[in-house]
């Protein structure tokens, strides 16, 4: 069993959620890139849910920024979300890099899905 899973949740149908759980760094970044590729390939909006992540480093930010660039090029919505209680190992790197408004990062998965839909770039748009 993977202690740090990255899974796709397509319960929202028009927006696929990439759920990132546990600690992630240079070792798991290739898996994250694969999951992001899968999510983008579905053609709709993409949410990255970091609410159960406990640590992410710059390797993860690199994967997120690459996916964000491709999403923008393909006119697919792309939003990162965190939970109400954010681990310092996630919040700190977002804060010190100034990436909260860039990625962008919002609070809560539902708000993130709404934000992606509000861009008009969910699947079927």
């Amino acid at each position, binding site marked *: 069993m993977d202690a740090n899973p990255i899974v796709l949740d397509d319960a929202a149908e028009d927006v696929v959620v990439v759920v990132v759980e546990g600690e992630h760094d*240079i070792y798991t970044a290739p898996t994250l890139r694969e999951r992001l590729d899968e999510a983008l390939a579905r053609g709709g909006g993409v949410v990255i849910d970091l609410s159960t992540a406990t640590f992410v*480093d710059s390797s993860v930010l690199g994967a997120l*920024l690459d996916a964000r660039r491709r999403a923008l090029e393909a006119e697919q919505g792309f939003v990162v979300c965190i939970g109400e209680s954010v*681990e310092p190992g996630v919040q*700190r790197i977002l804060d010190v890099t*100034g990436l909260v408004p860039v990625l962008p990062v919002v609070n809560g998965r539902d708000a993130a899905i709404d934000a992606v839909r509000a861009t008009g770039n969910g699947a079927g748009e």
Partner: protein
Amino acid sequence: MSAAPDVRLSLPARAEGVAVVRQALAGLADALDFDPAVLADMKMAVSEACTNVVVHAYGEREGNLDVEMLVDEPGLTIVVRDQGSGIDRDAPRSDDVPALGLGLPLIAALSDAFELRGERGQGTEVRMTFRYSRDGDPAQERPVQGGVGKDGRWDPEAARGTTTP
């Protein structure tokens, strides 16, 4: 201060080793009763230093990632060292490297003191110190410079935030 032992680790410079170093650091910091916010900064900075070794130090060769954690009066000093290709300040930025170029700026921003040693062909040593108590936030004193460039990668010259593609 606590009688927590100094720690020395030497392991193959592979991606899976970075989490091992973080776990060892977390155990030591717990024994030293560090504030969770400082521990988060330590784990981040050490991960970035170890990642630099894994990604940059040895190319296709095998090599070691050496880490020392030294307990001292003002705080915990962590040294991350390799015997790799060293710092090539003239090296062009490669698109093949799966890194963002944020490692050293993050280490500088998150540590209370930071020193980088090494030249081309002589390996590299990153030495960072984290104090038991902080007067302020080092990331405020030495903020990470740069932002996301038009190519979607980290650009030290870009304004904080991003340029809109």
